[in-house]
Structure formats: structure tokens, C-alpha cells
């Protein structure tokens, strides 16, 4: 291997290890109940991290903090090295956090295109600050093109209720990726999917993680082991396991992690 290519590989490895998201000493109290205790977490670029744990382990609390729904009692969140303070879910989205929800966060009465851009509608360039005119034409053509590029040929003007659960979930995942997020949170994204659709989704996510680092929040350890590079186990608000599983077979990884539940 030439000197140049070695240097290039080392730079690539360094870039791969660049931290996309860091949670520092996150503590959360609900009244007197401690939901999270000193959680420290890092997500590197190009990585998919599985956040697993039983009900009440603190997964939802951590996700709510990352989405800007609630604030931590103490601790810091850093995105690409910068400390961030999410004032609201909208603010978190503006700062590069996108989320795919268990129930797809879909409004059935709206069209596919309107759901695709829900909360992040494309505004016409010449729109004034008060009356924000949406660019319907661009929203329809962009969502249509983006969905068909990913293999979903949908008439984006149709109400989304006319489509299957798989197609709706595809819309909710692809809309999150459309905006080039810095971090993608996947909150139990496979709950409503068939096994076939789940496999298709996993293949798709494996490709997409190179573009956007992801955190998969799931109670299904098998799913996490199949898909993720690293697993973090939360138990009673604390991280009890945090390790890369590369090199381990799925069964071996499963056996190792299950001990920490």
C-alpha cells in the first residue's frame, strides 16, 4: 500500500470516528423520581447505535430529551462538538435532529406530499415574512421524485390513508432523510411493519447510515443486534452496557448483551 493511500485510509478512519452526537452527564428527575442517572453517550459519524432496555429503563426519557420535548435536569448535549439547547421539538429539528416515530406521525387526512413535508413545508422564495406561501408544486415534485428514487411510486396528491402501513412508514423515514439530518432517531420504527417490510427497511437503513448517523431505539434486542454497530443497554436510568458488536456473531452478541438486562 502506498504512503498516500495509507494516509487517506487513516484520515477516513479518523473521519469515521468523528463524533456526531455526545450526551454528557445527562440527569433527569421527574419530581423525586430519577429517570436518568449520569448518562454519557457518543455517536460517531457513519455509525448506527442501538439503544435497548426494558420498559422504564429510561429510553423514552433520553429520546424525549434528544427531540427537545423535555429538558434534562442537568447535563449537556453536543452536536458535532457544539453544545446545543433544544427549546422545542421544532427547534431540535432546526438543529439537525430528525425522528421517525413508532406510529409514523402521519396525518391521515393530508396528502402524501403534505405529510412528507409536515412541519417543514417548503416556502416560496418570494414569500414575505408574515404570509409564508408554501411551494405546493415543488413539494409535490420533490416528494414524488424522492420516493420513487427509493422504489415507492406513489401518487403524492392522494390522501395518505389510502396507502399501506409499509408505504406510510417509508414516507416517514424518507421525509426524515430528505432534510439531510445530522442525527436520525428511529423510535421503534418496525412495530407496524411486516417481517418482509422490516427486512427491506433494514437493508435500506444499512445503506443510509453512511450518510446519516442513527440511533435505533427498540425493545427488540434481535433487531438491534441485526442492524447496529454498537449497543447501549439502559437499566433503571443508567448505562449498564456500551460496546461495539462488530466481529461478534449475532448469537454471541445476543448472549453477551442479554446478561445486562
Amino acid at each position: 500500500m502506498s504512503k498516500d493511500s495509507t494516509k487517506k485510509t487513516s484520515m477516513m478512519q479518523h473521519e469515521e470516528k468523528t463524533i456526531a452526537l455526545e450526551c454528557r452527564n445527562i440527569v433527569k428527575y421527574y419530581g423525586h423520581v430519577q429517570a436518568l442517572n449520569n448518562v454519557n453517550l457518543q455517536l460517531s459519524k457513519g455509525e448506527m447505535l442501538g439503544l435497548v432496555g426494558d420498559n422504564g429503563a429510561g429510553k423514552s426519557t433520553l429520546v424525549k430529551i434528544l427531540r427537545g420535548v423535555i429538558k434534562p435536569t442537568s447535563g449537556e448535549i453536543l452536536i458535532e462538538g457544539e453544545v446545543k439547547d433544544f427549546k422545542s421539538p421544532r427547534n431540535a429539528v432546526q438543529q439537525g435532529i430528525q425522528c421517525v416515530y413508532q406510529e409514523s406521525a402521519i396525518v391521515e387526512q393530508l396528502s402524501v406530499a403534505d405529510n412528507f413535508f409536515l412541519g417543514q413545508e417548503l416556502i416560496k422564495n418570494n414569500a414575505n415574512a408574515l404570509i409564508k406561501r408554501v411551494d405546493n408544486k415543488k413539494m409535490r415534485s420533490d416528494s414524488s421524485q424522492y420516493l420513487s428514487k427509493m422504489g415507492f411510486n406513489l401518487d403524492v396528491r392522494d390522501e395518505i390513508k389510502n396507502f399501506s402501513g409499509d408505504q406510510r412508514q417509508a414516507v416517514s423515514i424518507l421525509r426524515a432523510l430528505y432534510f439531510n439530518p445530522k442525527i436520525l432517531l428511529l423510535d421503534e420504527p418496525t412495530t407496524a411493519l411486516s417481517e418482509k417490510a422490516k427486512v427491506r427497511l433494514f437493508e435500506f437503513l444499512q445503506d443510509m447510515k453512511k450518510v446519516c448517523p442513527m440511533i435505533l431505539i427498540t425493545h427488540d434486542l434481535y433487531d438491534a443486534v441485526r442492524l447496529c454497530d454498537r449497543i447501549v443497554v439502559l437499566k433503571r436510568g443508567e448505562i449498564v452496557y456500551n460496546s461495539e458488536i462488530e466481529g461478534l456473531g449475532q448469537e454471541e452478541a445476543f448472549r453477551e448483551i442479554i446478561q445486562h438486562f
Partner: protein
Amino acid sequence: MDINEKSINQRFYYLRKSIFDINGIVLLIAIAGLIIAFSLLSPNFLTTTNIRVLIETMSILAILAMGEHFLLIAGEIDISFTAILELSAVVAALTSANNTLLIILFAVLSAVVVGLINGFFTTRVGIPSFLVTLATMVAIQGVVFLISNYRSVLLKDNTLAQIFYGRWLSGISAAVLWMVIAIIGSAFILKSTRFGRWVFATGGNERAARLMGVPTERVKFLIFIIMSILASVAGLIAASRSLAARPRMADGFLMPVIASPVLAGAVLTGGRGSVIRTVLGCLVLTIIINGVNLLGLEPAYQNIFMGCILIGTLSVRSLQEGSSKIFIEKIIGRHRR
């Protein structure tokens, strides 16, 4: 050209979709039926003068219905608009300022205050909007009684009457132009602005909308204010028409204003509505009011006809859900849910 590009290029897709759904078809049939029936019963029905009267009568109803339509789409309801209308009219009549703009400002501001109260208690305190607006309706009616001293108050400002009920372009009443502004404005907001999308999303699935970053509380707050401004404009038109304002002057509007968007396909759970169909709904109800007046029947018949039209339209909508086979099964009572 693939299927998506082809369909995107089809023009008037949404206009066709608005009118030619079951609610639009039922309303068009109802309008046609009423026009035929009343023109057979009264020779004065299809005259230019009567059509002008009919459209002018519709103006206040349509302006109020536009506001209610916004609220129903967002999953809320406002029944205090009758009191807001009366408050604005009485405030305008009582204001002794010589400046017309100042009078309008006071009238609109008094309405906006009620809208803010409705918005605050619905979104911040979490009381259902029906109960909040029921309470404000009763309270504001009390205020109107007190400030008007239980009597009619004459409107002193002629310019105000000209602005809201004078004859403008080739004799068209200003009220009609205000109605057109309200309709076009509502259609523009709902169809072309981000706020319009948020209104539908808030009523369709509030939780999903909130998760996706839509400020649903702010959206609802703003709609209560829009409703109160429209009720205020309606109040100024009503006061300008009779050159006086009095308590209970909006009593007859409660049912038609809520019924018009409901006839048009809006549901109390939110997420649905159409400006074009709401206008058609207003037209149906106004034709009934106008026709009953022309025939010299007692006003009670207006209520009977309106009630029948409403229950008939809602039944067709409810029965139509599903295939034509289910529709027939539902009518003959053999459909299993």
C-alpha cells in the same frame, strides 16, 4: 413521463376533488332542488332583485361560517361568535369618536380580546372549546346588555355604514365585497400558506403534528383570533345594515353558521373542510331563509327546513362511507359493522 409527473400536471385536480365528492354533490343537488321548488312556488324568486337580496343576506352568514370552518378543521368549535358580533356592533355604535378608523379599531379590539380569552382557556388551561365559548358567550351577552342598557343603540357614524353596507362598484353592497374578501382570504390561507397546512394537521392528528414540530397551540390561538375578527366584521355589517346595534341581534346565526361547514363535510373531530363547499352550504341555508320569507311562511319553517337538510346531508354522508353495496345494505338495515 411517469405516473407521478403525469398526475401532477393535471389541472384543477383539487377544485374537482372539492366539489365532486359526496358532500359537494349533495349540496349541488340540494341547491338545484331548492331553486326549482322556490321558483315554482314564487314568481319573485328568480328575479335580479331577489338574487341580489339573497347574496346580501348570505354575506354575514358566509363571513361567520369562514371563521367557524377554520375552527372545525382544527378540531375546535366557537359558539361565542354571536356575542362577539353583538359586542363589536354595540361598541361601534357607542363609541363617540369622530374618527371612523378609531371606531373600527375599538370594535375589532373588543372582539380580539374575547378571541384571546377563548384561545387562552382552550389551549393553555385545557378546557374544551365548546365549554369555554359557551361561558364567554353568556358572559359577553351580559356585558352587551349592560353597556347598551338593554336597548338598541343608533349608529352615528355614516362613513362606517358606507364602508360596511354602502353601495360600491355598480351598486353592489359593501357587505358582498367583505364576504368575497373573507372567502378568497380563507381559501388562500388554507390552500397556499404554511399556516393553512398546520390548521389541517392540528385537527387531523394533533399529536403527530406536534411531534413533527407544528406549534399546535399557537395555531389554535390564532384561529380563535381570526374567528373573533370575522365576527367583528360581521357585527359592523349588521349594525351598518340596520343603522343600529342591539343585544341579541345575532340570535338567528348560531345554527346556520355551524351547519354550513358541517354540511360542507367538516367534522367535529377536525381535519376536514373545504371553503368552496362551505360557501355552497351557506347558499343552501340562505336560499331556505329567502324562500320561506318570499312565500310569507312563518320563520319557524326556516328552522324546520334547515334541520331537515342538515340531518339528510349527514345521513347520506354516513351511509355513503364504504362501497355502494354497503350503502344499500345500510339503507335496508343488513349491514354488519
